[in-house]
C-alpha cells in the first residue's frame, strides 16, 4: 500500500510544521474559547430554553474557529511555492485531499474537545452522562464540516484574494450539519436519546459520507492551478 | 389589497432593473466592437473567423 504511506507522510509533514510554527491551532483554540465564554456568559439570562441556545452556539463557535484553522493551514501551504511541488509528486490528488482532511479532522477534534469541556464547566450542562453519544455526534459533525472545508480550501486558496471567502462559501453548504448537530446536542442535553436523536445522527452520517465521496470524486478535476 | 400591488410593483421594478443592466452591457459590447474596427454585421464574421 504505497499510497497510504505517502498520505501518512503528508499528515506527518502538516502536523510537524504546525507543531513548530504554532500558527493555526492556537489561534483557533483561542477563538473557540473566547466565543464560548461570551456565549455562556449571556446564557444565564436566557434561563429556560438554555439547552437549545447552548447547542447552536457550540456548533457555530466550532464552525467559525474551524474555518480559521483551515484557512491558515492552506495559506501556509501556498508559501514558497510548495503547493506546486506537492502537486508534482507522483501521487494521485485524492491522497492529498484525504491527508488534508485527516489533519483538519484532528484539528477540529481538538477544538471540539476544548469547547465541549468548557461548556460543561461553564454552563453545567449534563453532556457527560452520555459520553459515547456526544463523541459520535462530535465526530460526524466534525467530518461533515472538514470534508466541505477541505475541498473548498484546496480549490479556493490558489489565489490570494479568495482565501477570506472560505468561511462565507462553506456556511450555506453545511447548514444541514449545523442544524442536525445542534438539534442532536440539544436532545443529548435534555437527556432523551430516542428515535429522533438517531434520525439526526443518520442525517449527519449521510452528509459526511456524501461530501467525503464528492470530495474524492471532484478533487482531481479541481486541483490544477 | 395594497400588499398585492406593492409586491407586483417591486417585482416588476427588479426585473426591469436587471433588463436595464443587460441592455447597458449590450451597448458597451457594441461600442467595444466598434473600437475593434468591426463593422457590426458583415465583416465581424470573417475577422474573428467564428
Amino acid at each position, binding site marked *: 500500500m504505497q499510497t497510504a504511506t505517502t498520505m501518512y507522510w503528508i499528515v506527518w509533514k502538516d502536523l510537524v510544521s504546525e507543531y513548530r510554527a504554532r500558527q493555526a491551532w492556537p489561534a483557533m483554540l483561542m477563538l473557540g474559547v473566547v466565543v464560548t465564554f461570551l456565549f455562556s456568559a449571556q446564557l444565564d439570562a436566557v434561563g429556560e430554553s438554555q439547552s437549545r441556545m447552548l447547542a447552536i452556539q457550540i456548533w457555530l463557535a466550532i464552525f467559525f474557529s474551524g474555518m480559521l484553522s483551515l484557512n491558515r493551514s492552506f495559506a501556509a501551504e501556498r508559501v514558497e511555492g510548495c503547493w506546486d511541488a506537492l502537486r508534482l509528486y507522483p501521487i494521485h490528488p485524492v491522497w492529498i485531499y484525504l491527508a488534508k482532511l485527516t489533519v483538519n479532522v484532528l484539528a477540529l477534534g481538538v477544538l471540539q474537545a476544548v469547547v465541549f469541556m468548557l461548556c460543561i464547566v461553564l454552563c453545567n450542562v449534563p453532556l457527560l452522562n452520555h459520553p459515547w453519544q456526544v463523541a459520535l455526534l462530535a465526530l460526524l459533525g466534525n467530518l461533515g464540516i472538514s470534508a466541505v472545508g477541505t475541498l473548498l480550501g484546496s480549490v479556493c486558496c490558489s489565489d490570494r484574494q479568495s482565501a477570506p471567502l472560505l468561511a462565507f462559501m462553506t456556511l450555506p453548504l453545511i447548514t444541514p450539519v449545523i442544524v442536525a448537530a445542534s438539534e442532536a446536542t440539544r436532545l443529548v442535553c435534555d437527556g432523551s436519546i430516542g428515535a429522533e436523536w438517531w434520525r*439526526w445522527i443518520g442525517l449527519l452520517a449521510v452528509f459526511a459520507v456524501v461530501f467525503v465521496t464528492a470530495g474524492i470524486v471532484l478533487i482531481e478535476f479541481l486541483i490544477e492551478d | 389589497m395594497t400588499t*398585492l400591488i406593492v409586491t407586483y410593483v417591486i417585482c416588476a421594478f427588479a426585473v426591469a432593473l436587471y433588463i436595464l443592466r443587460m441592455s447597458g452591457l449590450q451597448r458597451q459590447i457594441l461600442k467595444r*466592437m466598434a473600437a475593434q474596427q468591426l463593422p457590426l454585421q458583415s465583416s*465581424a464574421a470573417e475577422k474573428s473567423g467564428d
Partner: protein
Amino acid sequence: MNQHTKSHSHFRPIYVGTACVMTAALVMALYFAPTEETMGHVQRILYLHVSVAWIGLLGFAVMGAAAMAYLFRRDLDWDCWSQAANEVGWLCCSLTLLTGSLWAHSAWGTWWTWDPRLTTMFILWALCSCCLVVRGSIEHPHHKARLAGIIAVLGLIDLPLVVMATRWFRGVHPVSPEMEPTMRITLLLNVVAFTIFFTVLFLRRRSQLLSERLLHSLEIQTLKIREMEILT
C-alpha cells in the same frame, strides 16, 4: 459573432410572443381569478410567488448542471451558461423570498418563519449569492469558473439534505391548498408564462456573455498582432 448577430434578429418574434403571454397571465391572475374568501386579494400573490420559486429552483439546477459540464470539459462556454443561470436564478430566489415574506406578513402576521420551504429557499439564495460574489471577486476566468462551479455542484448535492434537515425541523408552510379549477388554470398559465419569459432572458444573457468573452479574446489577439508588427 456571426452566429449571435443572426440569432438576434431571429429572436424578435419570440420577444413579442413572450410579451403577450406574460400580459395574458398577469391579467388572468389579477382580474379573472376568483378572490379567495379568507385572505381576499392578497392571495393573488400566490401566482407570482409559486412561479418565481419554481424558476429559482430551475435556475439553480441549470447552474449546477452547466457547472458540472464545465468541470469535466474545462470549456468556458459552459461557464457562460452557468453564470447566466446563476444570475437569473438569484433574481428569482430573491423575488421568491420577497413575495413570500410580504404575503406571510399579511396572511400570517409575521415577516419570516423558519419553516422548511422558506429555509430551503433561503439557503438556495445564499448559495446563488455565494457564487455571484465569487464570480465578482476573482479575475482569472478559469479560477473563477472553477470555484463558482464547485460551489454550484456541491450546492446541487447539498439541496436534498437541506430539504430533509429543515423538513424535520418544523413545518407551517401549506403543502398544496385545495383550489377552485379556475385558480389552478391561472396558476398553470402564470408558471408557463414566467418560465418562457425568464428562459428568453436567460438565453439573451448567455449569448451576451459569450459574445463578451469572444470579444475579449479577440482584443487580446489584435494586441498581440500589433506587437508582432512592431517587433518584426
